[in-house]
């Protein structure tokens, strides 16, 4: 396996990832601040555009803009540079309100779900190596028995991380894989069981039923374990991420989101909308394809990274 990018330090990469995300909004806001001396309708309109271009979406953008308009009126703000702070404040408050972090004390099962190609398997690889580095005993269930070579892909990741893996043949019942993995996790007293699942579109009833079955197996076979359900969202996704989150939540009860591919030019602003409308917190961000390209999500840091230059 060739190393596709030069090896960089963990923090350097994280910073790069966040900087790219941040620069896009920040530089535009800075530009705006420079350009407009007065807060007028045009200014608000352009600010709105900035949020829309970050995929925040119409509804949440309006929510944020109303907040800012109110503030400006109430506090009689005449200084455009204050807007940046207001924007940041508002986004932090949306992201922070009633937020949670993943609970990883005691035996934990983490079910990883999402639509096709968002980065579920890679995120599991990254999580596994992270947990292994922390000295945890990790088992991975290869419950994507559908996609071609999904098992092989996960096997390579498990070796990299030093986690064990439970695999069945391609086409096997994914619930059976999870069942076996739970028995293995119990007998080995593993700390974390990570379950990879096949990518599926949230509007496919039969595939969602299959996922619900897997979820029920976990509840029934491993009630003593804490259960997390991680929805993986690709940062390039637009407003459909809201429908994804809503649908997966209805089926299997999402506890947190991993936002991947933030190393690109997409800003991933749709998670602000997901948080605002569905109150699903973001747990992790993915900023590359290597094992250490995963970082815990922190609302304050994230919002700061978005708006501080």
């Amino acid at each position, binding site marked *: 396996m060739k190393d596709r990018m030069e090896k960089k330090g963990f923090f350097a990469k994280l910073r790069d990832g966040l900087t790219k995300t941040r620069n896009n909004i920040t530089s535009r806001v800075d530009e705006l601040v420079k350009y407009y001396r007065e807060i007028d309708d045009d200014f608000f309109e352009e600010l709105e555009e900035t949020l829309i*271009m970050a995929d925040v979406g119409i509804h949440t953008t309006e929510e944020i803009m109303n907040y800012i308009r109110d503030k400006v009126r109430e506090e009689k703000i005449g200084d455009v540079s204050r807007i940046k702070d207001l924007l940041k404040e508002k986004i932090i408050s949306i992201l922070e309100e009633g937020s949670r972090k993943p609970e990883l004390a005691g035996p934990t099962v983490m079910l990883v779900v999402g639509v096709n190609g968002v980065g579920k398997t890679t995120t599991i690889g990254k999580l596994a190596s992270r947990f292994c580095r922390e000295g945890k005993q990790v088992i991975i269930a290869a419950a994507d028995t559908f996609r071609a070579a999904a098992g092989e892909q996960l096997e390579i990741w498990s070796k990299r991380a030093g986690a064990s893996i439970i695999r069945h043949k391609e086409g096997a019942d994914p619930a059976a894989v999870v069942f076996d993995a739970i028995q293995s996790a119990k007998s080995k007293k593993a700390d974390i069981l990570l379950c990879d699942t096949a990518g599926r579109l949230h509007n496919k009833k039969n595939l969602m039923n299959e996922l619900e079955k897997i979820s029920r197996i976990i509840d029934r076979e491993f009630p003593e374990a804490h259960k997390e359900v991680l929805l993986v969202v690709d940062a390039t996704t637009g407003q459909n991420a809201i429908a994804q989150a809503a649908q997966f939540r209805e089926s299997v009860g999402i506890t947190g989101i991993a936002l991947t*591919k933030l190393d690109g030019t997409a*800003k991933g602003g749709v998670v602000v909308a997901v948080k605002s409308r569905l109150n699903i917190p973001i747990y992790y961000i993915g900023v590359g394809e290597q094992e250490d390209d995963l970082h815990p999500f922190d609302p304050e840091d994230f919002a700061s990274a978005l708006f501080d230059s």
Partner: protein
Amino acid sequence: MAFESLADKLQSALKKLTGKGRLNEKDVKEAMREVRLALLEADVNFMVVRDLIKKITQRAVGSEIMESLTPGQQVIKIVNEELTALMGGTQSKVVMASKPPTILMLVGLQGSGKTTHAGKLANYFRKQGKNPLLVACDIYRPAAIKQLQVVGDKVDTPVFELGQEDPVHIVRKALEYAKENQHDMVLVDTAGRLHINEELMNELISIKSAVQPHEILLVVDAMTGQDAVNVAQAFNEQLGIDGLILTKLDGDTRGGAALSARAVTGKPVKFVGMGEKLDDLEVFHPDRMASRILGMGDVLTIIEKAQASIDLKKAEEMERKLRTQTFTLDDYLDQLEQIKSMGSMQDILAMIPGMNSSKLGGLKIDEKQIPRTQAIIQSMTPRERLNPSIINASRRKRIAAGSGTRIQDVNQLLKSYEELKRMMKQMTDMSKGKGRRGRMKFPFM
């Protein structure tokens, strides 16, 4: 999450407008607010939306509201037409190389669906009697080669791979292999990459210059948001793409990314992915995509029906007359009235089954000529109108005097009328598939 549909919003925004006539600026502006929101909600890129709204507004303001439509429906009709036009022509095909093998190369971001679609294309072309070869150039992602092999197996297509060798070397060897083994198509699967990763973009450029693919297809996830323009533009500028494949359209995304990518690259969507199975590949229908983005297929169907029922009646009547060669000068006069009240004759002609507006080319009607033509016809006796062949020299003189025109004008009109009749006959023949295209000229052009 019940999104109020654009149709509902437009309907309520324009409810107070029950009157007919022309759309005024205020109505249009109000409607455009809703259209803008709907397009943004559908993930059409912000800049693309801005351009579109401008264009639609220009067209809508002052436009005639059709007999059978409400103002809201009229706006929707215009929006839909503009969207469809922007989406490009129907069903762009892959052009086969004159000297096989035809080389296709799939490129795109990580997770967009390249490998699956390489398999789907292999399947698609096999069914057309081709003998494709799949080439595994994703040397980075764990088990990517294995994935392509499994896919290739399922569609009965061999996969050329050299493990983790340099992709440029792999494609060169693959091309040699294809020629030796009578493969008339080579489908190259490449690794997913970010458009801002210089090193990996250069790799694609090297592959391109090594084997000169006939088509480079950018694979785009239909759920992509505002970033679609950046991705499409970067791939197109750096690599030069020939078309788009839009994947995962079996989901419930509106798919505005299709419009964005198309708008910034000018390259057509050639295929859409409609599922995970390897025969879930379809050709692209711009009109379906347009109504999907607007999220109002039902309303469009209603509009189409309303429109069709009134215009088709006219068109059918006219077609009957043309076919039976009973298109008289009275009918001609009628047509002129309608042109004044309805907008255009092209629309009516376009309704003739088998006829489409492209056949009518740059048909443009000079409205200033219409009153004079009308005056001439009105100066004719009913018998003359019904049977123009009886109009001899003295009758021409009388008609010219009666209509305040010159004899040449009357001659010109009669000539044009004959020409129109001939041309229309030719068009109906053509629509039945037996004629050839001729130059068309309207008498009042």
